[in-house]
């Protein structure tokens, strides 16, 4: 059974409908990418999955359970953890406090010490900055902290929105490699990216979202070689 299944979800903001029947499944242990141009509803889909907005129609299943109507804090308890676009750190709190807040779910608190060591190993920079206010760090460091805070939540699935946004290419590459490592250690990851080329390189499976619906999907290598995808997103 798939870990996450989104079935024919429609949703949006107020009167404005963004999603027009989006579906996808994320298999356990895989790194799944959700790509598409700006404004097709990638972030909206993620927000719907994580419970920041409710689906108008359709369902979200997590581990076989219908979680469509759960608020996001209860989803975090189940292990559905999101790293939001634009990082959204607790900017007035220290790096360490941000990580501590990341370990709020009961299942995460038991493993907090272990996970803290893990994120400090992946991002040694954060350890050096443990007592610094997170809002005063550079964009790249803040993005590291956002991912690290997600890992502290002991996720079953880590959903990352626009990892590369506003980051230098070298740093982006570093972060993508860190994700790949986490995936190899068994973490299920869903990655939402505008940087289609990079997302297809790093992921196992990919969904292309267009006009609020799933346009095409398949193993990332096949999607990468799809003529229409190449024409639309990769400029080939």
């Amino acid at each position, binding site marked *: 059974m798939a870990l996450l299944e989104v079935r024919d979800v429609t949703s949006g903001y107020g009167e404005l409908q963004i999603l027009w029947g989006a579906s996808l499944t994320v298999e356990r242990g895989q790194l799944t990418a959700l790509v598409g141009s700006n404004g097709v509803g990638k972030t909206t889909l993620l927000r719907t999955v*994580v*419970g*920041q907005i409710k689906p108008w129609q359709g369902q979200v299943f997590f581990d076989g359970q219908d979680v469509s109507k759960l*608020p*996001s*804090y209860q989803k*975090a*308890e189940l292990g559905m*953890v*999101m790293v*939001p676009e634009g990082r*959204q*750190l*607790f*900017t*007035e*709190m220290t790096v360490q*406090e941000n990580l*501590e*807040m*990341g370990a*709020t*779910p009961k299942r*995460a608190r038991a493993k907090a010490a272990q996970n803290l060591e893990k994120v400090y190993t992946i991002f040694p920079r954060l350890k050096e900055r443990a007592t610094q206010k997170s809002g005063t760090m550079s964009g790249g460091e803040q993005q590291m902290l956002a991912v690290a*805070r997600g890992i502290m*939540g002991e996720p079953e699935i880590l959903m990352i929105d626009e990892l590369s946004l506003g980051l230098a290419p070298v740093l982006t590459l570093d972060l993508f490699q860190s994700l790949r490592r986490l995936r190899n250690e068994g973490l299920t990851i869903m990655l939402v990216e505008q940087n289609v080329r990079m997302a297809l390189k790093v992921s196992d499976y990919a969904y292309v979202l267009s006009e609020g619906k799933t346009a095409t999907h398949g193993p990332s290598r096949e999607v990468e070689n799809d003529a229409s995808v190449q024409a639309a997103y990769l400029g080939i």
Partner: protein
Amino acid sequence: MFDQLIVSVTDGMLIGVVYGLAAMGLTLIFGVMNVINLAHGPIMALGMFGVYLCYTVLGLNPFVGLIIVAVLGMLLGMIIYAGAVHRVIDAPHLSSLLSTFSVNMMIIGIGTAVFSTSFRNVNYSLGTVVIGPITVPGTRLSSAILALMVTGLLYLFLYRTRPGKYIRAVANNRTSAGLVGIPSTRVLAMSFGIGTALAAVAGGLIAMALPFTILSGGAFELKSFVIVVLGGLGNPIGALLGGIILGLIEGLVPVFTKVTWVPFIEFVLFILILLVRPQGLFGAKQ
């Protein structure tokens, strides 16, 4: 003259920390949820009556009464949050101003019906304490020490405990708080509860020093606004310092001129700060 100044400074500081405590309740609520609680004054008045009733009806020591006032204040705050604040928390400021003002009117209406508007006082004394040239009433000194202790405890709570950090996280970024698994609604209700408990306790402390009616909260609510603006909106430590400044003004002005100038000077200061340094003397939260 010099002795007179020392006495005035001491009096001012002692009452100032109590004002600071009240303002802390207002500023905490604003800092966490951007809501200006216009029921702040009547809640202080309820704190006054709480201590009064504990003392006169139950025969409790007023300082023991304060514990009851704190617990009931917390509960009342959570009820007010659920009934009047939760639904308008993301609405424009006018909505929450109107809804907390309605709570204000309800408390005053019911309070007037039950207690009338005649003056009461808590006739409790701890004798006097003599320190060098100055003599202070024991209750005032104890009140000030208690207010400082509560401030210290609040600080420890916010910075050293998990629920306290939840409050700071929700204040800082409510969306992210939900994402990491913090139940924001419960945390908001708790914050509102703590804010009102602080106001009620401050009211209780004031009741031991001054006579009061159910309407007395209004004047202290205005003082709290001045203090909060002085100290920076959303900044609890700023509130304490702002309270001390206001207390000093109240203590010192009568030495040089008529006491009736006090409110005038306070509000001129209020307007000046708003014009010149709207973030307050000690910085507001972003």
